């Protein structure tokens, strides 16, 4: 069938994707509101927490559990519910939407795989690792990763990793390494995969994933799906770039000239507004004022970086300063809540729903941990949650 230019019109969208989209739109009702969060904040122990959750959409989920519910168990339950919803939607949909829904979750699959490989390196049992894996990124081939003898990761790559749905990102990763240093041969791949830290591998693989996802959204999809996903993915890439550069400011190894050109450049995301335009300035950025200068033409990013503490000076949080993570989460929640749900007859709402639900799970688990640890109620951490769709609920 003709693969490009699908989902281009409000006239033909409902033929294939109407059912899935309207289920998703009605799933949007299930987000917790501000008053639910207030009720959760006022809980004294985990039994109260469970009772408050029974009044919300998570009713069927927590009812069968024993009364003082554990935080880890709660987190697993919530993520499994989201994963089941997405699986149902994928089962009801037909071609470009199925591939879209799968590509959306490759990020979580990357997390799972790298964690499992790390765990195997440290001789942790595979069953324990599988239990700890993120249900959103579940795929059946996860169980096939075995212990490799003599740390031969090239072999692991050729036998197992290349068959996975995310195998092409590993392929790009290894090609990238081989290109940068043509004298190295395949034995060095094992050395690299052994020596690189898992965070590093994750960041580089996610870069390839976002680029690939962006390419899918701009070539295969069409119409409002393409426009809105283009905007969302560019935003996501830019935020990851800014976060990586910000986090590298305190790190002497990455901030030196050689580190900036060589190693840090590997993390810069290619799909985004910052990449070809501000690449030179971003490469030169080795402290916070230079980073702010590099993103100055983009009003939104400039505003985000205004209140951020300088990591090289080890400033204390005071006044209006917020950490970069908080700012990133807030901006993302606003963007996904408003832009992803604006028009009808497009698929960006699936992506926005997944991200916002993830934010909600983060909120609930954060509050659950505070309740479980019996933190006194006047600490500022109690306010540290971001309500999805906060602005929209004030209408009525």
């Amino acid at each position: 069938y003709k693969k490009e230019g699908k989902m281009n019109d409000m006239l033909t969208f409902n033929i294939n994707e109407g059912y899935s989209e309207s289920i998703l739109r009605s799933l949007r009702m299930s987000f917790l509101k501000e008053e639910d969060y207030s009720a959760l904040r006022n809980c004294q122990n985990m039994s109260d927490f469970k009772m408050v959750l029974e009044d919300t959409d998570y009713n069927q989920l927590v009812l069968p559990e024993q009364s003082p519910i554990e935080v880890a168990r709660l987190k697993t339950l919530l993520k499994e519910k989201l994963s089941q919803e997405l699986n149902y939607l994928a089962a009801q949909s037909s071609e470009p939407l199925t591939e879209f829904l799968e590509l959306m979750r490759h990020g979580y699959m990357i997390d799972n795989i790298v964690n499992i490989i790390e765990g195997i390196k440290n001789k942790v049992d595979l069953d324990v690792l599988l239990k700890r894996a993120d249900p959103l990124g579940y795929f059946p081939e996860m169980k096939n990763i075995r212990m490799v003898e003599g740390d031969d990761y090239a072999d692991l790559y050729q036998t197992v990793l290349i068959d996975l749905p995310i195998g092409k990102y590993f392929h790009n990763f290894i090609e990238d390494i081989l290109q940068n240093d043509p004298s190295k041969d395949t034995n060095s791949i094992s050395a690299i995969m052994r020596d690189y830290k898992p965070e590093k591998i994750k960041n580089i693989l996610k870069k390839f994933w976002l680029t690939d996802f962006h390419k899918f959204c701009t070539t295969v999809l069409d119409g409002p799906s393409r426009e809105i996903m283009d905007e969302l993915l560019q935003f996501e890439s830019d935020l990851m770039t800014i976060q990586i550069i910000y986090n590298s400011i305190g790190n002497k190894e990455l901030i030196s000239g050689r580190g900036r050109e060589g190693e840090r450049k590997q993390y810069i995301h290619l799909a985004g507004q910052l990449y070809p335009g501000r690449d030179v300035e971003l490469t030169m950025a080795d402290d916070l004022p230079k980073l702010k200068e590099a993103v100055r033409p983009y009003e939104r990013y400039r505003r985000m970086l205004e209140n951020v503490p300088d990591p090289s000076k080890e400033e204390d949080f005071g006044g209006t300063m917020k950490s970069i993570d908080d700012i990133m989460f807030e901006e993302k929640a606003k963007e996904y809540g408003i832009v992803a749900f604006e028009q009808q007859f497009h698929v960006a709402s699936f992506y926005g729903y997944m991200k916002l639900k993830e934010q909600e799970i983060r909120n609930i688990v954060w509050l659950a941990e505070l309740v479980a640890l019996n933190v006194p109620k006047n600490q500022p951490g109690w306010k540290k949650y971001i309500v999805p769709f906060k602005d929209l609920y004030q209408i009525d």
Partner: protein
Amino acid sequence: MTDLVLPTWGSLFHYVNPYEWGYVGCGIALSFSIFGAAWGIFITGASIVGSSVKCPRIKSKNLISVIFCEAVAIYGVILAIIILQKLNQPSKAVNWAAQTDGIMNQAMFAGYACFTTGLSVGFCNLFCGICVGITGSGCAIADAHTPETFVKILIVEIFGSAIGIFGIIIGIIQCTPADFPKPEMLKQIYQNILVINLNSFP
């Protein structure tokens, strides 16, 4: 058939039998209306079905959108029946080539009238059906989320459905004067011609 010695582009229309114009018009009126109604129903139906999975209370109210789309199809059927009543069968004994200009003009007028009625009603209902369908889809989704918005969006749908009514009004006005020549009238005129010819023989 009339006195056209040199064929021009107009002959293209003249040589088409007026009854063909009439029947094709009837077909267009019916089929395009049904096309529009069907398109509207599937667009709104998919959304209603999906939204009522998590929110079953919207099921009965949102069938109004489907009823508006169905009304569009009924307009098409009404007009098709009206056009068909105008198309009476010509007499078997009459030869078209021997007709006088007046009869031919009347037949051609009636044919064109029926054809364009079909065009106007058909396309009006096509776009009306699609419009009501897309609006109904949005209505189902909004109703599932916030019940107060149902009545407001229904007003938009009513306006959308009004354009189908414009089609049927104009269509009825267009095809009322259409009158194909009746067989008795033709026979009478033919007999008159025969009488005149017979009388002119020496």
